[in-house]
C-alpha cells in the first residue's frame, strides 16, 4: 500500500502525463483527476501540472482557478492536504490565493527553456523534506510568464518566515523578484515551483534525477503521518 497522489488535467495541461509518471517512479500511485469534476477520488495529495490551462487566456491560471476541481482542492489544501503546483500549477495556486503574489511575463519577453540550477532554501515543506538546506539541484525550466512578483512587505515576510523554497542560481531566467523559483504557504503543505521536477526523475530523459526528491518527500510524509 502506498500513497495515492492525484494529478489534475485541465484543458491545455501539458505535463500531467509526466507528473503522473514521476509519482510512479517515486513509488506512489498516481490518480488522474479531471478539472470538471469536484471530486478528489480520495487522494492523499495533489499535483497541479504545467501547461497552458484554458490556453492561458485572460491571465495564466485565471480561469483554471474557477474550475470545479479547484474548489475542492482549495478546501483540502486549507485543511492541510499537500499540494504542489508546477509552472502553470504555480500560477493557478497564486490566482487561487493559496499562495501570495503573482507570476508575470518574463522580463526578457522570451520564452525560456533551459536546464536550471536551483538552491533549495527550505527543506521543511511537505514537498522538500528529502533535500538538505542549501542543496543545489538542476531541473528543467520552461516558461513565458514565470516572473514572480509580490509587494516588498510580502517578499520580506516570505524570506523572514523561511517560505522561499527554491532560488535561481547562475542567472535569473525570468525577472523573478529576489531570484525566487518557488514558495510555500504558512503551513508548508502548499508549494508552488516554476521549474519542473517531474522532468528530472530519470537519467534517460532528464538532465538529472534531482526532481525526484519532491515526489519522494511527499510520499515519505504521507507514510509517516499514517494517513494510509
Amino acid at each position, binding site marked *: 500500500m502506498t500513497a495515492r497522489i492525484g494529478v489534475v488535467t485541465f484543458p491545455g495541461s501539458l505535463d500531467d502525463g509526466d507528473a503522473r509518471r514521476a509519482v510512479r517512479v517515486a513509488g506512489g500511485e498516481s490518480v488522474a483527476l479531471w478539472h470538471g469534476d469536484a471530486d478528489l477520488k480520495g487522494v492523499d495529495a495533489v499535483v497541479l501540472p504545467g501547461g497552458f490551462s484554458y490556453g492561458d487566456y485572460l491571465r495564466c491560471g485565471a480561469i483554471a482557478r474557477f474550475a470545479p476541481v479547484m474548489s475542492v482542492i482549495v478546501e483540502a489544501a486549507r485543511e492541510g492536504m499537500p499540494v504542489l503546483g508546477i509552472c502553470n500549477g504555480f500560477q493557478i495556486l*497564486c490566482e487561487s490565493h493559496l499562495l*501570495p503574489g503573482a507570476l*508575470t*511575463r*518574463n*522580463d*526578457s*519577453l522570451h520564452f525560456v527553456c533551459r536546464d536550471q540550477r536551483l538552491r533549495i532554501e527550505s527543506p521543511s515543506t511537505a514537498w522538500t523534506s528529502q533535500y538538505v538546506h542549501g542543496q543545489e539541484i538542476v531541473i528543467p525550466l520552461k516558461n513565458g510568464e514565470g516572473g514572480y*512578483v509580490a509587494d516588498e512587505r510580502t517578499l520580506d515576510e516570505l524570506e523572514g518566515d523561511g517560505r522561499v523554497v527554491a532560488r535561481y542560481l547562475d542567472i535569473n531566467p525570468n*525577472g523573478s523578484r529576489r531570484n525566487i523559483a518557488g514558495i510555500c504557504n504558512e503551513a508548508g503543505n502548499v508549494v508552488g515551483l516554476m521549474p519542473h521536477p517531474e522532468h528530472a526523475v530519470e537519467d534517460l530523459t532528464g538532465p538529472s534525477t534531482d526532481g525526484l526528491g519532491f515526489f519522494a518527500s511527499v510520499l515519505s510524509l504521507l507514510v509517516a503521518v499514517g494517513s494510509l
Partner: protein
Amino acid sequence: MARVVVDVTLKPEILDPQGRAVQGALGRLGLAGVTSVRQGKQFVIELEGDLDADRRASLDELAATLLSNPVIEDFTLTVEDAG
C-alpha cells in the same frame, strides 16, 4: 441593452515588458520623446435589459476577481449609456 467597459492595467510598480517593447518600437518608427508605454486590456460587456443593482454588484465583484488580479492589476469599470 447595457454596455459595460472594464479597463485593466498593470499596477504602476509592476514591470511591463510588453509596454517597454512597444515603447522601443515607437521610437524606432520615428516618434520622438516617448517616456513610457503601459499595455492594458479592455473588456466590452453587453447585457440584456437595464443594469440593475444586483448585476452591477456582480460585475464589480467579477472585475476584481476574474477580469483582473488585484495583486498586479488595477481596473476601472464604466457603464455606458444604454444603446
